[in-house]
Every structure is written in structure tokens, then in C-alpha cells.
């Protein structure tokens, strides 16, 4: 990966561990990716794949026993891991902001929306109380909350889940961030609300010209919004490609499995049961020696359980699978 001029965030060889009495969980292993200005990069994986831990590492919100053990997170030329807590705070919520999965619990129940919304505005934009409230109302209108000047006095429990996620979005966008990290922003919502929130994020991205790092397990969401996709499994990147390439021609056996397990209109006509990847996510305390996916892979080879595959660069995409080893005879099979 070369660093081009419009790279906003570059994560290099990031490894994050959780050290516990029972052993160490390598939640993220040697992960690299970049986010360019204004693009949507999706990180896809099942729960436990390390995608959320990666995003929290970027935000500097990892709490013990979680710890970044190696790597660099470079944002506009500055390594975030080397910043002081104070410098990191100035960045968080200001240049890089985040929306979380659970709108129902992500807002503080004992403070009004106004209180929670103006907090970061006053902190980062150095506005006085009145100006901050004006800005907050403006943001609430932007995310489509009707009669914002009234609703701003509400407490979170007086709002629906969809409304709360809009408030969360307003909060995250209130200081004009360059990068928005959205961690499963729609998972907890009804399907119709999901589409609204996604459309909202896509809309605002264009309007405000920010980049979005979208964390999700839902390939359907990815197909609708992402420019490029990183697929994670067992803490590692297993495939990286443009969204177009990935959906047109998935290559990694895991990605294939994920795509096949999405219900589609075509499937529903015949009575074939929905495909499911057999087996379970490996125990993070006891990772297999070879490829993390080997146990569940339909195209497993003997070497897959013996050694870890590296990331191969194939036709402009990255793949962690021995099937694509250019030196191996198996490479021909693709």
C-alpha cells in the first residue's frame, strides 16, 4: 500500500491484545489499511473478528485489559499512538468522531439532549453556551429531527431508537469531523430505520465531505454504501478489495461463504435452505496454528493447518489464503 496524497488515516501493522488471567487474546493481529479523504471504507467481519477493537484502537478508547501492542495509526501524518492523552482528546469528537451500535444505551439517561450535544461543541469549537445551542439545533435539523428546538430539551428516554441514533449522528458530526467511525450504526434498529440512518450517513458524507469508516457484519449494508472493503476473520485481514470487485468476484473462501449466506431474491424462489458457513469462530484464547479459517474452509489444503498464510497481492486486491500463493501450484486453481 502506497501512501498517496489524499490518505487521511493509515493503520500500519496494528496489533491489539487483551491480557487476561486465562491467557492473551490477540484481538487484532498485524492489521493494515488506509482510509482516503471522503471515501467509505467498510470493515466486515463476524462478531469477535476484531473489527470493533480495531476501531476503538483508532479512537484511543481502548480500556484495560485491552492494549495496542504494536503498529502505527497515522492520521494526517501524526502517529496517534504517540500522542499525549490531551492531544488525543483534542482530536476525538473533533477531527475523528464515532457512532456506536447501541443508540438505546449510548446516550446518558440523566442529561438532556441539549446538554449532551453542546458538550463537544463547546469543548472543541470554543463556542459560548448560546452559540453552542444554536449549532446543536442546526445539527439536529441536519439529521432530520422534527421540531429540533423543542426536542433538544428532551431526555433520551423520551425518544425512539431511530431518533436517538440520529442524535448520536448529530453529536458525532457536530464539530465537522474529517473521519467518522460508525460501529454497527444500524444493527440495533428496525429495518426501515436502518435504511434511513444509512441514507442519512451517506447523504451527510457527501454534504460534509468527510470519510467514513464503517464497521459492520452486514454485507448488505456494505454493498449499498462502501467504496472499498476490508474483510476480517479471527483478528486478521483476510481480504481487501474495492466494493465493486468484492461483490462481483469474491475470492477468499471466507468472503465467498459470507456472500452466499446473504438471502437474496433469487434464493427465495427455490426452496433451497440458506447457506451457512459450517463450524464456529475459533476460540480467541486458543487460535489454531495455521490459517484461522482452516477449520471451516471447504477448500482446505494440508498446509492450511500447518502455517499461517501471508497477505498476497492479487490483481489490486489483498488476500490471505494459500490458494493465491503465486509460487504454489494451487495458485492455478483460481
Amino acid at each position, binding site marked *: 500500500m502506497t501512501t498517496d496524497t489524499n490518505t487521511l488515516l493509515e493503520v500500519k501493522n496494528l496489533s491489539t491484545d487483551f491480557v487476561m488471567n486465562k491467557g492473551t487474546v490477540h484481538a487484532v493481529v498485524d492489521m493494515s489499511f488506509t482510509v482516503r479523504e471522503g471515501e467509505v471504507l467498510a470493515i466486515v467481519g463476524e462478531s469477535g473478528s476484531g473489527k470493533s477493537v480495531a476501531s476503538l484502537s483508532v479512537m484511543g478508547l481502548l480500556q484495560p485489559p485491552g492494549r495496542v501492542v504494536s503498529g502505527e495509526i497515522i492520521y494526517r501524518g501524526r502517529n496517534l499512538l504517540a500522542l499525549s492523552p490531551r492531544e488525543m482528546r483534542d482530536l*476525538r*469528537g473533533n477531527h475523528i468522531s464515532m457512532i*456506536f451500535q447501541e443508540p438505546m444505551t449510548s446516550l446518558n439517561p*440523566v442529561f438532556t439532549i441539549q446538554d449532551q450535544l453542546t*458538550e*463537544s461543541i463547546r*469543548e*472543541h469549537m470554543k463556542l459560548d453556551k448560546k452559540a453552542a445551542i444554536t449549532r446543536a439545533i442546526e445539527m439536529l435539523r441536519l439529521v432530520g429531527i422534527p421540531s429540533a428546538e423543542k426536542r433538544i430539551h428532551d431526555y433520551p428516554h423520551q425518544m425512539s431508537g431511530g431518533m436517538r441514533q440520529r442524535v448520536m449522528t448529530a453529536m458525532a458530526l457536530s464539530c465537522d469531523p474529517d473521519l467518522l467511525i460508525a460501529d454497527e450504526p444500524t444493527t440495533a434498529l428496525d429495518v426501515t430505520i436502518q435504511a434511513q440512518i444509512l441514507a442519512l450517513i451517506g447523504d451527510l458524507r457527501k454534504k460534509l465531505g468527510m470519510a467514513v469508516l464503517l464497521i459492520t457484519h452486514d454485507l448488505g449494508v456494505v454493498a449499498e454504501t462502501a467504496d472499498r472493503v476490508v474483510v476480517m476473520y479471527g483478528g486478521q485481514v483476510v481480504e481487501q478489495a474495492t466494493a465493486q470487485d468484492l461483490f462481483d468476484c469474491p475470492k477468499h473462501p471466507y468472503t465467498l461463504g459470507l456472500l452466499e449466506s446473504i438471502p437474496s431474491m433469487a434464493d427465495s424462489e427455490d426452496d433451497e435452505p440458506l447457506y451457512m458457513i459450517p463450524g464456529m469462530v475459533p476460540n480467541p484464547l486458543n487460535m489454531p496454528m495455521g490459517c484461522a479459517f482452516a477449520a471451516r474452509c471447504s477448500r482446505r489444503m494440508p498446509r492450511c493447518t500447518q502455517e499461517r498464510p501471508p497477505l498476497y497481492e492479487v490483481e489490486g486486491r489483498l488476500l490471505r489464503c494459500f490458494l493465491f500463493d503465486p509460487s504454489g501450484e494451487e495458485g492455478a486453481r483460481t
Partner: protein
Amino acid sequence: MFKYVTKRILMVIPVMIGVSIIVFSLMRVFSPDPAPIVLGQHATIKSIEVWRHANGLDAPVVTQYVTYVAKAFKGDLGTSYYTKSQVAAEIGARFPATIELAIAAILFATTLGVLLGVMAAVKKNSVFDAAGSLFALIGVSIPIFWLGILFIMFFAGFLHLLPSGGRINVMLEPTRVTGFYMIDSLTQGNWDGFKDAFIHLILPALTLGMYSMAIITRMTRSSMLETLGQDYIRTARAKGISETKVIGKHALRNSLIPVTTVIGLQFGALLGGALLTESVFSWPGIGKYTVDSILKSDFPVVQGIVLLVAVIFVTINLIADLGYAFLDPRIKYSSKKED
């Protein structure tokens, strides 16, 4: 909100009636006849009868109860069997001392308890946390009268820093207005009296507040830990506000909600503990008066004190409940819905 408050206040009434019945029947039905105790062993049957009639003890118990309650509403709690003085007046003279002590103790317990609890939770599993837990454990295990004795030994006997008992130097005693020496001396510009009252208050307040402080510390710690794990704390951190604000604003307000209930309950426990503390420090409140009256079977006094304490206890818990509603907007909302 109004409905919620009214409902809570109305719930107090049956409890108070019940308490008065319990106390009354304990004193008049289950107790041995006080007459021989009060009049001494040499009392004649005739004199006992006269005495019982004079004190209304020869009437049926139900009549006695109704009379008592009717008088109590007018502020008449009867007269002491011994001194013949008005119980209400006797209690009134001693009560401010007890309340002053209890308030000082709960202030100390709350301030320090919340502070220690928050720090222990924030620095979880640190040496500080362990020390705090040990401190809290000892606080709930040490008998308060022994703690008071140890304090006297150390601060009065060994260091000669603080007085070993009493409420104020009689020479400095302020003119009695509220009965709270800290307030009376201050409003009268009696600076030396204020200082002296304060110095006398330190050890008893620490002694009395120690148990409550331990409980509040434990409660705050566990409540804070739970709060710190909430999603909205992560949201607050993601906003880039300072950690002080994350803890002091977002986490503290939420974790104090359950602590208010505990503080209310502790205030009641303090009124009980005051009996012992006052006895150790010769504090001229109702504690010693209660114990003496019980030893002498001076039932009107005991009855009056227990009822008064119950009223205060129930009121404090009511206030704590309302404080709960104040801290947690979700409560107001649900009561609004009821309207």
C-alpha cells in the same frame, strides 16, 4: 411529579400509625408494671393504685392509646414518671444536640464515602482500591463505641489535640436559639464558641459517621463501576471531553442515584448509633436520656423518643426517595404518565 410526592407522603401515614401501635403496646402491654419500679419496693398497694390512676394506666389499653395519640397531635407526649416534667420539652431540650451530631456525621460519611468510592472505582484493582476496600471492611466491623474509645485514647489521651467529651466549654456556650451550637454561636458572633463547639464535634462525628462512610464507600464503588461500564461513558469519552468531566459529570450523576437511597437509610442508622456515641462522648443529646429512661422504665419518655426518631427516619427516607426522582429524570417521566 406532584402526584408521586403526594402518594409517597400518604404512604407514610399507615407506617407511622403502625409504629405508634407497636411502641405503645410494647410499653403498656408487654412490659412489666412500672409502678413498683417507680415507687420503689416499699410502695403500698394503695399508693400504687393512686399512682396508676394519676398516670392513666388504669384505663383500658385502647382508651390509653387513643388518649395518647390525641394528645401527641397537640404536641403533648405526656410527663415523665419521675420528674413530672413534660416529655416533649425534655426531648426538645436535648434533641438539637443529637441532630447536630447526626448531621455532622452524615456530612462526613457522605463526602468522604463518595470520594473514596469514586476513587476506588476509577483506580480499580490498584493498591488504592485494595486499601479503600480494607478501610471500608474495618469500618463496618468495628463497634462504634470502641472506635470512639480508641479515638479518645489517641486524640485526647495521647496527642492532647481534641477534647475527650462534652459539647462545648460552658463558659463559651451561646444563648440557646436553635439549640444547634454551631449555628447559635455563629449568629451571635461568638467565634470562640463556634471553634470550641466544632472541636468538640469532630471526634463524635467521625465515630458516628464511620460505619455509614464504609457503607457509602462500598455502595459508591460498586455503583460507579457499573456506571463506568455503560455505553454512554464510552460515548462521552468519544466526544473528547476531559476524563474529569467524564467521571465527575457523566458517571457520577448516574452512580449517585442508588447511593441516595443508601444515604437516607444510613441517616436512620445514625440516629440509632447516636445512642452509643453520645454515651461514649458524654454528648448531651437524647441518647443518654433514652438509655437512662429505659433503665428506669420511664415509659412516656421512651415512647416519645422512639416515635420522634421514627418520624424523622421515615421523613429522611422520603426525602431520599424524592432526591432519587430528582437525579433520575426517568422517574419523573413515568409519574407524568400516570397523571
